[in-house]
Every structure is written in structure tokens, then in C-alpha cells.
């Protein structure tokens, strides 16, 4: 490719459990308008649209991207949709990057929205991601899928339920400073431990909420950005990697991947770091927005990102690492992360948006002081698709 690709506009809803005031296309439009205002662009300048939408069933409309065409101003323009489940948001930003890097366009918007809070029951929808003959009827859901990962991580590395609760306390504290976050009320280890058991050892407070809202980002070529004298955050590394589909391939004798860890996420980060020239992430990364919809998964995400050794992150968190104001190392999820906001179609986009705001110095109360290099990731499918990205000021 010739020249870098920069982020020049960001829009995020203030996510809520319900948005009865807005239809699905309205929510997309809300995010697009915020991003367009942020970049101070006219729609004529947008050359392509990458639409970010995970399972159709969440919004109750098949191929719902079609209804979003006018909401994103795509009429008679380049338009396509991406779906990699929970990773969709980061895959969409990566695809927007690809449009620019390929020289097809100078300015691309990626946008989407979700109404997870209004879908009835997201776990009923998500059960349908599994194979109808073998694993769907167990019944699997994303909560018990990752509860099994927690059990395995406990067995391998000695994580406790209190360690998990500590992640919730940290992220809720961060979210209290983020006006876009859905769950903004601070909590305590005791409250987390006392919350209702969902799927052992995952309790209600260890789970992400079901959120409604939208997000949008505008990317442009370095040439276009410099010609207009604009400010930008640069995407310097990006990658995807995937795990197996069948949960049975990650458990029992002869498993192909250990369900405690996230080996494909590690591989994805390794590729993104290589592209960005990062050799020592513990020293070089200032801020990390890691996709962790359940408290336990933040630990293996931190380790896959190379910010801690395998099994080391619970002890590091106990010692004060990863929190806003910590003495050294990267702050993890200063936005509150997925644990406090999950509108699935754009959750992974918000990870990049938040990392970009941090290195831009525009993160408000949740700003990590002096952040220059941020990382983000998104996980999709049954912990199957992993997108990663590096952003720099």
C-alpha cells in the first residue's frame, strides 16, 4: 500500500438497555451524524460505506443492512456489509481500512447499530450460531461457553471468583467516567459475589449487558488528510485470526486449542504487532480496549495481547495493574469495556473508537495520561474470530 490510513471521525451513541425513541435505522443515523459532525464532512465526500451488522436476528430483520442504506447516506455509492459475529465492528473498520489501502477510495465510513436490549433474549438468538445437529441442543449459549473457559482457566492458573469480581469493579469504575457506557454505576467485590449465579462461576455482574445504540467511524487516506490539514489517528497494525467452530474441539482429550487461553487472539495480535513494528507490548502499549464480555475473559485477552504472561494477569490486577491511574503498563478498558456496554454489531468498533480517542487525547474523564499507542480487539462467533488493531497518535 502507499501511505497510511487515518481515523478522522468517530460517533458513538450513549448506549442504553432500550431505545424506544429510535428505530433501528434511526440508531445507525444517529451514529453517522455524530461521526460526520466530528469529522466536519459533507456526505458528498464519503465514497464508500462498510456496514457493520452481526446476526440479523438481533434486530429481527433479515439482511437488515438494506434498511440502513439511506441512514448511512449510501445511495448509489459503494456499500457492503460485514458480519463476523461479535468481531463485526473491528472487521468492518479493517474492511474500511482495506478500501482506502487498496486505493479504491480516499474516504470511507463504517457504521452500524444494534438493539440487543430489545431483541427479547440474546441467548436464544445466539444459541442458533451452533451446529443444529450436534452442539445447539446442549444447549450452548455464549455465557455457558465462556463459563467453561473460566473453569478451565481456574484449573490451569488458579483464578478465583474474587479475581473475576475485581475485573468488574475496575471496569465499572472506568465506565462511570464514560458518558457512552451503558452500565455506569460503580460496584464492589461483595456486590459482584452476591449477584445471581448464571452459569458457574459466571454471575450476573460478571456478564455484559444487552445494549442498544450505534457507532460510526470515518477513515481516510494520508494523502487526503494531509491535503486538508486534518488531524487523525493512524491505524498502524491490523489482523484477524480464527479458532475452530466446534466447542468439542477445544475440550476433552485431544483438544486442538485450550479453552482457557485465546491462542487465535494471540496469533492475531502477533500479526498486528509485526505490522506496527511493536516488539515489546508491555513496554510500548499505553492503552488497551480488549473485547471481554465476561469478567474472566479479560484475563486471557490481556495475556493474548502480550501485556502479561499466561496465568499472570489476575495477580497483576490484584496488585493494581490495568486500572486508570496505575503506576506502570497499559490501562485496560478505560471505557468500561464490553462488560459495561454490548451492542453486539458495533461493540468491537467501539473498542477501536475508544482506543483512538485515547491516543487522540479526547477521552475526557477516562483519558489515560500521555497515551500515544493503543490496541483494540474484537471476538466473534463462539470465541472463534479475532480481529486486532493498533492505533497511534
Amino acid at each position: 500500500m502507499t501511505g497510511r490510513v487515518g481515523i478522522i471521525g468517530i460517533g458513538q451513541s450513549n448506549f442504553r438497555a432500550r431505545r424506544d425513541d429510535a428505530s433501528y435505522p434511526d440508531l445507525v443515523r444517529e451514529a453517522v451524524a455524530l461521526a460526520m459532525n466530528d469529522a466536519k464532512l459533507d456526505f458528498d465526500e464519503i465514497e464508500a460505506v462498510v456496514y457493520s451488522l452481526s446476526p440479523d436476528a438481533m434486530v429481527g430483520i433479515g439482511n437488515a443492512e438494506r434498511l440502513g442504506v439511506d441512514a448511512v447516506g449510501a445511495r448509489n455509492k459503494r456499500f457492503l456489509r460485514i458480519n463476523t459475529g461479535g468481531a463485526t465492528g473491528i472487521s468492518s473498520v479493517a474492511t474500511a481500512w482495506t478500501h482506502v489501502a487498496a486505493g479504491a477510495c480516499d474516504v470511507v465510513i463504517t457504521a452500524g447499530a444494534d438493539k440487543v436490549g430489545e431483541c427479547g433474549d440474546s441467548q436464544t438468538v445466539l444459541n442458533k450460531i451452533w451446529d443444529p445437529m450436534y452442539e445447539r441442543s446442549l444447549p450452548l449459549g455464549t455465557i455457558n461457553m465462556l463459563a467453561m473457559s473460566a473453569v478451565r482457566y481456574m484449573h490451569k492458573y488458579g483464578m478465583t471468583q474474587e479475581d473475576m469480581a475485581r475485573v468488574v469493579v475496575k471496569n465499572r469504575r472506568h465506565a462511570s467516567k464514560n458518558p457512552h457506557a451503558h452500565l455506569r454505576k460503580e460496584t464492589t467485590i461483595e456486590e459482584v459475589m452476591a449477584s445471581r449465579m448464571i452459569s458457574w462461576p459466571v454471575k450476573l455482574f460478571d456478564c455484559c449487558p444487552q445494549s442498544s445504540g450505534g457507532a460510526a467511524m470515518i477513515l481516510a487516506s494520508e494523502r487526503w488528510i494531509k491535503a486538508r490539514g486534518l488531524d487523525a489517528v493512524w491505524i498502524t497494525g491490523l489482523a484477524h485470526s480464527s479458532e475452530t467452530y466446534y466447542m468439542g474441539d477445544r475440550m476433552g482429550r485431544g483438544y486442538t486449542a485450550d479453552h482457557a487461553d485465546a491462542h487465535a487472539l494471540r496469533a492475531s495480535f502477533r500479526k498486528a504487532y509485526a505490522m506496527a513494528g511493536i516488539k515489546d507490548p508491555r513496554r510500548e502499549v499505553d492503552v488497551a480496549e480488549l473485547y471481554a464480555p465476561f469478567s474472566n475473559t479479560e484475563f486471557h485477552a490481556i495475556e493474548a495481547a502480550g501485556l502479561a504472561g499466561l496465568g499472570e494477569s489476575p495477580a497483576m490486577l490484584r496488585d493494581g495493574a490495568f486500572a486508570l491511574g496505575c503506576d506502570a503498563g497499559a490501562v485496560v478498558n478505560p471505557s468500561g469495556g464490553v462488560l459495561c456496554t454490548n451492542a453486539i454489531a458495533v461493540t468491537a468498533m467501539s473498542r477501536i473508537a475508544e482506543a483512538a480517542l485515547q491516543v487522540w487525547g479526547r477521552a475526557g474523564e477516562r483519558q489515560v495520561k500521555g497515551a500515544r499507542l493503543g490496541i483494540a480487539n474484537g471476538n466473534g462467533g463462539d470465541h472463534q474470530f479475532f480481529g486486532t488493531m493498533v492505533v497511534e497518535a
Partner: protein
Amino acid sequence: MAGRPRVGVVGVVIWPCLPDDGRHSLEEQLHRAMQATLADAGLGTEDLEGIVVASNDQYDGRAISIMMASAPLGGVDRDILSTPSAGEHAFVLGALRIASGQFRTQLVVSWSPTEASSIPEAQRLAADPYFHRRLPLDELAAAALQANVLEHAVPGAGALAEQVLASGRRNGARAFPDLVQAEVPRGGPSRWPLRHDMVPPPVTGVVALMLADEAFIAERGLGPVAWISGLGWATEPAFLGDRDLATAPALSAAAAQAYGEAGVTDARAAFDLAEVSDVTPYQALIALEGLGLASRSEWQARLAEFAPDGRLPVNLSGGIAALNPVYCTGLIRIAEVANQLRGRAVRHQKQGARRGLAHAASGPAMQYQTVVVLDAGAGRTAA
């Protein structure tokens, strides 16, 4: 994509009508398609750097159908994405991913199963829930509304559509004699003005293409190659009431992108053959106009040019008029042109074809439009 790596199609598999023998799962069919495409390209699994797939979750009966497809297509430990908006969008993204310089190769795959109890019911879920879903509006109904508008706008369009339909069937019978009959009894009304015989029944299909960059192709000595010289894609809005269904502005926009990139200034003289998306024969007529091959006032006089022995054969494969694997018909059009330019079209091969035009449309009444200009061998730079 000037200044970026040139992208070529080096492997193609088109299975437009898979027998439902009850012995092979979709996963097995996809794995076989991946292996066959790699074999056609002269490559192995180790050469696969990335994958883009496109499928329809409602037809597949899965909430995220890329999940099932990942392992059979070699996606484990690799970079795999999906573009569920359209099969042809997977081709667009595959080409862009190579042109970006991030990848040297991409496998592009789309499929369309027929196990859904009712494909029209699945399509009705895509209508907006407040206004259109209760009509009920499926894709055939949208195509019928489009045909009706075209008949109103262009007197005689119905008769022209009959000619296009007959031509498509004859071509299909020549290309796929085991699957397509040239003569089909006239059917009863389906959705007026369409008849049941005007749109073939859905069949299960799989299509896959292997793309690679110029340096990789040279380094590995791959061939034959169909080079992507121009690529355009655009969308119409979703609400049919917001559109003039007898015209295709998004197709004109997509064609302008592709032609501009390929240096095509006169589409009528630029191509040796074309494949157009024709869920109905009315759509083929609209495509001819949108692509700049024949305006509506010229349809009657110039249809003969688009016959197999005409100056610009259109749909030598028979198009969708012959075989209708619903979701992947658009990507098949691109694969057909690539195979023609690679000299791999077998029964319906046009000898000496050097430059081809592929048009793919998806969604209600051709909402999504994609145009690809492909060149054989070293390619050409201008028409």
C-alpha cells in the same frame, strides 16, 4: 486501484446445481469446493492467506453462517471475513484485500442451500417489519413489481423479455445439457406479470474463486489468469417506493467506477462477452441499459448482437434463466466470465475471448449492483 498490486483470478469452481444426494453435508461440499479451486489454481492449502465468504443466514438456518464454513474452507488460524450483503461482495472484498498489499492470495466462496422450508418466507423476513413485511414482499414479488414498471415504461418490454428468456434457456441447455432444458412448458401466473416458468426453481449451488496478486502469480508461474481491470459496486435504497424500478442508477454508478478503472470509454465496443444477472428476463434488459450496452430504445434492434453468435454474446452460461442457486447467482456471473477468459468454460466457451464484463445484482429488484471488467492474459488498458 491504480498503483496497487494487480489482482488476477487463478482458480474457479462453479457448481451451479448440486444434487441433494443426502450423503454430503454443506461443510463437506464447501471443503470439496475449496480443494477443487486450489487444484484448479495449481496451489495448496498452505498458499491460502485469507478467505472471504458470503452466505445468507436465513437460508442456512444459522445465526452466523460463516462460523460453520470457516474450518471446511481452511479458516482455522487464518484471516476469514464474511460479506452477507451479497455473494459478489465477497469478490469485491477479496480483490481489495490483495490490492491493499496486506495479502497475496484470497479464496472467495459463496453458496446457496435449499433446505429452508420456504425461501420466500426467509426473504420476507428482510422486508421492513412495519410497512412491507405484511404485504407480503419477497424477492420474486419485488422482481414482478419491477417487471410491471418496465412494461409500463417501455411498450413491448414483455415481448422482448420473452426473447431474452428463450435465449437464456437455449444457452443454458448448451452449457449444462444435463441440468437445463431449452424448451420449458409455459407456466401459469406466478406474480404478475411473471409466470412460473420465467424464474427457475431454486437449486443448491456453490461457487469459489482463487485470487492472487501479480507478483505471486509470476513467482509461482500460475495460469491461465483472468485479471481484474475494473471493479465497481453500488447500492440503491431499500424501500421500493423510493426507487424508479425501471431504471438502475446504482448500476450506472458501479459501471462508471469499473469502466473508469479499466479505461473503458465505449462499453459497446469494449467486450468480447458479458454475463448479466437476470433473475427475470426484465432484469437482463435493465442490465443491458445500465451497463451502457443497449438503451431501451435499442433493445428491439440490437438483441441479436447478444446471441451466442452475435458480436457480444451475453450469458453464454444461460444465466439465472437457466440455473438459479439463489444467493450465489451474482458471484457465479463473475466466475463465468473469469472462466471464459481462462479458456475453461468448456461447452459454452467463446474462442479467443480477451475482455469480459460481469454484472452481478442482489437484493430486492437489483438493490445491490456490482460490475467487474476482466482481461485475459496480459490484459488491455483501454477500449
